[in-house]
């Protein structure tokens, strides 16, 4: 079947511009580093091969686990529309992803650690000590699943709710088994998003650093970032750091190339969720509710531990400290600016990217696979770019271009935050944008809608809920990010997570726990209230 191509020129430009800016930035940072380095010094030794092999293995396992848990949970939540506290649960699942790693690790340790609640409970019931240890590969996988499954859930619940009710009626009418209903109705709705999710999660786990070290339990579990850290910090071998960063870029780029150039499929879109929980049979309903309850407990306990730990802080003193006010103000301001940039940039990229993935737009045009790839790379920049190298490159760029160091520090931090949130934002928005186009392109073109009218009538109503989520995600990722400002450090420039680390670094663990509690509350509130701003008065989180 041939469909007449629909080529909407205007909407290509903003996304291309964003992508070009990001790629230029990356090139500039790497170039700065290359200028300073005396040449690439990289011995492809066995240790490096071992690190890459382990990291790939751990990232692949983490990705599979995150997807399995996330899909099971999304499937359950989508079908159990009336589960009490559903909106709050979805907000909570989102919180895990964006908290500073150390908060998540300490929260998980409170539950699963050697003196954790789970062990205590097991001990109280059986009188024996549990043989399980969170330190090792299992800990790495648990933490990664904890962080990433939530993102899968939030994305896929929306996809599942967008399945046309006719398809569900058909499946029930034919009497398909629960498994076949999943395979034929639910899975195809998820599949296009799963690809993007898998890449994002894999890259996130591939570059995961703190978790692998803290929970790995042994130097056997190592990452490229550690090697880069060592090269920059102890050896000051910028050539080696650059070479290692390029190895990481190459591995990640190969993966993005493998997946990022694929075409979009599926064109079903539907507004409100229509589910038939009462037709699923008691066993399936029970299974779904069990999954939700189990996940709610698993996801909530570490957060509850954070709240309990934090509640012991002396808030009257902590809140009165001038450094706290400064950190909070800086964090919130930077988060707002970053989120505004992320929302604008990711919408532009999503609207442009679909031009190259939808068959009836530019997918057949010359150079379109290249354009699609460029979009994928630029969106995944942070995930493939070691944070230390990003910060270093920025610092060198700042020195070359001059200007106040503090302004550069702010720019570096905002850039880091924006590039950190972009891959998530794009992964959320691209499928929605593609569906909107697939469904309404012909109508919009036949009516001759101006792009602004089209945006108001088609993209905004269909994408606003997702845009709200992206805004919340970007705000929170910025709030929780440790940033790349170490090299820029000045006396007064500090953010909340930075303050938290400083407090722990000075034995002040109670204060640090208090800051963690404040951060967690901010993040949860953002996930509950910000999406509301975007979805009107309709409903809460999703």
């Amino acid at each position: 079947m041939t469909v007449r191509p629909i080529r909407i020129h205007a909407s290509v430009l903003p996304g291309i511009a964003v992508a070009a800016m990001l790629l230029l930035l990356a090139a500039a940072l790497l170039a700065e580093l290359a200028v300073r380095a005396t040449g690439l010094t990289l011995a492809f030794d066995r240790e490096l091969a071992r690190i890459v092999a382990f990291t790939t293995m751990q990232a692949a396992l983490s990705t599979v686990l995150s997807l399995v848990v996330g899909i099971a949970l999304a499937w359950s939540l989508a079908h159990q529309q009336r589960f009490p506290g559903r909106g709050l649960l979805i907000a909570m699942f989102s919180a895990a992803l964006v908290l500073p790693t150390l908060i998540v690790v300490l929260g998980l340790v409170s539950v699963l650690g050697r003196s954790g609640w789970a062990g205590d409970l097991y001990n109280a019931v059986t009188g024996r000590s549990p043989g399980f240890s969170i330190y090792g590969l299992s800990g790495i996988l648990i933490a990664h699943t904890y962080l990433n499954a939530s993102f899968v859930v939030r994305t896929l619940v929306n996809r599942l709710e967008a399945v046309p009710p006719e398809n569900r009626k058909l499946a029930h009418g034919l009497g398909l088994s629960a498994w076949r209903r999943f395979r034929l109705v639910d899975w195809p709705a998820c599949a296009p998003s799963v690809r993007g999710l898998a890449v994002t999660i894999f890259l996130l786990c591939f570059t995961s650093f703190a978790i692998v070290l803290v929970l790995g339990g042994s130097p056997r579990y190592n990452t490229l970032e550690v090697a880069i850290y060592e090269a920059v910090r102890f050896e000051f071998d910028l050539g080696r750091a650059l070479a290692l960063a390029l190895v990481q870029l190459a591995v990640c780029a190969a993966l993005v190339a493998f997946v990022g150039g694929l075409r979009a499929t599926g064109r079903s879109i539907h507004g409100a969720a229509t589910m038939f929980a009462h037709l699923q049979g008691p066993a399936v309903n029970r299974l779904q509710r069990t999954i939700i309850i189990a996940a709610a407990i698993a996801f909530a306990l570490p957060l509850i531990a954070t709240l309990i730990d934090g509640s012991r802080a002396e808030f009257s003193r902590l809140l009165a400290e001038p450094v706290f006010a400064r950190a909070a103000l800086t964090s919130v301001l930077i988060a707002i600016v970053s989120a505004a940039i992320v929302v604008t940039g990711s919408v532009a990229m999503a609207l442009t990217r679909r031009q190259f993935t939808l068959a009836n737009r530019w997918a057949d045009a010359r150079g379109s696979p290249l354009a699609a790839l460029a979009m994928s790379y630029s969106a995944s920049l942070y995930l493939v770019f070691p944070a230390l190298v990003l910060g270093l490159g920025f610092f060198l760029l700042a020195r070359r271009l001059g200007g106040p160091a503090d302004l550069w520090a702010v720019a570096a931090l905002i850039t880091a935050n924006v590039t950190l949130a972009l891959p998530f934002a794009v992964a959320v928005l691209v499928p929605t944008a593609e569906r909107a186009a697939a469904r309404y392109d012909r109508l919009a073109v036949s009516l001759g809608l101006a792009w602004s009218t089209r945006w108001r009538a088609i993209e905004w109503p269909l994408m606003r809920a997702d845009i709200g989520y992206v805004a919340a995600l970007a705000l929170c990722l910025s709030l929780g990010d440790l940033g790349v400002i170490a090299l820029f450090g000045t006396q007064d420039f500090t953010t909340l997570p930075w303050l938290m680390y400083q407090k722990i670094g000075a034995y002040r663990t109670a204060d640090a726990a208090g800051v963690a509690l404040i951060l967690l509350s901010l993040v949860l509130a953002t996930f509950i209230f910000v999406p509301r701003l975007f979805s009107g008065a309709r409903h809460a989180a999703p």
Partner: protein
Amino acid sequence: MTWLHKTLLAAAFATTTTMAATAEGGKRELIIYTYDAFAADWGPAPGVKAEFEKVCDCELTFVTADSSIGALRKVQLEGEATPADIVLGLDTNIAEVARATGLFAEHGADLSALSVPIEWNDEVFAPFDYSYLAFVYNTEKLETVPGSFEELAALPEDVKIIIQDPRSSTPGLGLVLWVKQAYGERAGEIWRALAPRVLTVTKSWSDAYGLFLKGEAELVLSYTTSPAYHRIAESDQRFAAAMFAEGHHLQVEVAAIVKSTDQPELARQFMAFMLTDAFQDIIPTTNWTYPAIETANGLPEGFDPPVAADKALIMDGADVEANRKAWIEEWRAALSQ
């Protein structure tokens, strides 16, 4: 775009106030690069700034990096144009690296008042405090307190320690050197014996100590002065440092003048001030380390006296530089089995 601009400027403004203030007064300014814990509100910096500004008719500004190595790398990257006049907080293990950069000038301070556990007559690096690595434990939880690495390795199966990675953490590197100094050729064997005791290896001291305070392990690699913090600041008597027969790795923190300074006189004045009571009395209860001179007031109540000088293990910086990679590899191989 204007709105964005304003917000950016507002965010930037919050961070530039110090800089602006220093420029206004027309006073001389001394800029010190240091690690963040030193410059924190609760660190030594505020007190040092107040005391030094009383006598110098100048403005003292601290610029923080995430660590002392970070501060050094910052100066290196900035090269001749660096605004830094002094780098403060390098430890003896990386002082040689710093010396090799050729970026530092002689301090010219009188070192005769020094009271550090080793002989010190370095003309570039002047010490301002020192501390010993030690395994810290909770007295209510640990029954058998180990008195050596071998006893530590022989503790029951369920006693665990948390250490730091030598590739990312200063105490982590210190521990590798400590074992090497104490056992030489046998270091690998000791690490293999310790391996089952190691619960986890963290990126930084903060991660390790955070986990330890959560009760995850019985012992953590920290400093002999750590218990003093809990005793003095929190009135918590539960923590103690395990004293080892082999001795303890000594970490001396030093400062040095950057060659390209535009305030050489002021910088030398600060280096001399650093070795007076006014500076040194601030150190114990803000940096939680031992002062580099014996002050009139002595150590505060609750501070353990330092480890006897004959138990202080220190390694020559050049040796560290020459062997660091091999020793870390020995450590990694032993723990990875």
